[in-house]
């Protein structure tokens, strides 16, 4: 597929394939957006490089997906914007089904902190070196990760407590 990259994104792709040649996997475009896939173990170095060298100072979003495939089931996507160059792209990493974990990027972008907690809460992806790593939506003692595909739509009956309807007797 022919790529139509702007100058900024061309610099990004060239810089990544040059400096992180071992970790750079592919670049592709779809519906007008550019996606760059890299190895999971280099994601912190790559993010730091993108912020310092290419001025991608704004992490708009960080989210997970459950592809429900037998290999590399989970995916974490970083949506990056350069306000200076008015450019955006998506950085993707794939993670295995067993014990998915990543390094946190919350010391590069502070906004990553809560979004990584959400990815952990919903998909069970662990982020190492996170400053405050715990669930963000579900109860702290909750046993499941509700956005995983095998999780039933209506939840596990009785897994979240309802208030007592006889408060006087408890």
């Amino acid at each position: 597929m022919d790529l139509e990259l702007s100058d900024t994104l061309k610099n990004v792709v060239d810089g990544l394939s040059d400096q992180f040649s071992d970790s750079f996997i592919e670049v592709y475009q779809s519906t007008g957006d550019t996606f760059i896939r890299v190895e999971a173990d280099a994601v912190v170095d790559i993010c730091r490089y993108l912020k310092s060298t290419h001025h991608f100072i704004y992490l708009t979003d960080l989210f997970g997906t459950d592809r429900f495939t037998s290999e590399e089931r989970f995916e974490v996507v970083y949506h990056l914007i350069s306000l200076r160059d008015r450019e955006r792209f998506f950085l993707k990493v794939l993670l295995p089904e067993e014990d998915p974990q990543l390094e946190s990027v919350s010391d590069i972008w502070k906004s990553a902190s809560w979004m990584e907690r959400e990815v952990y809460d919903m998909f069970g992806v662990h982020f190492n070196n996170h400053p405050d790593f715990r669930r963000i939506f579900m109860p702290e003692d909750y046993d499941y990760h509700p956005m995983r595909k095998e999780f039933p739509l209506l939840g596990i009956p009785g897994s979240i407590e309802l208030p007592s309807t006889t408060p006087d007797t408890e």
Partner: protein
Amino acid sequence: MGIESSLGDGYFTTKVDALTNWARSNAAWPMPMGLACCAIEMMAFAGPKYDAARFGSEVMRFSPRQSDVMIVAGWVNYKMAHAIRRIWDQMPDPKWCIAMGACASTGGMHRCYGVVQGCDNFLPVDAYVSGCPPRPDALLHALMKIQDKIRTEHSVMLDT
């Protein structure tokens, strides 16, 4: 000058039940539990056009101690359910509950793990209002149903 001057002499007989129910049913102060878009319609219900004041329910009390009818307006998630039940428990008896809209009645379109599928899972609901969101008229109808219910209750009982 009070109303006594125009009434003249005389007397009036009734039952304590009827008198109590008459008073209660015409002063059912709502506890607005506005949780989502239904709360906008609930505001219209209280506002001048639909005018809940005609039924004595214009006093939205944001204090459970002073309210009689809890209007659950919107979808209830599990976290909020505990707060709602706590407020309900703080309301003095007698009290009534309206589940306003599809979400409060059944979970509505929020058919998912985080939303309680109907607030009757933890509250004794007296009136359900259909609609998404219901029009203010529908909420007035529910209020009138509550009034009918209050009027047919045995409100005074001998404590034997």
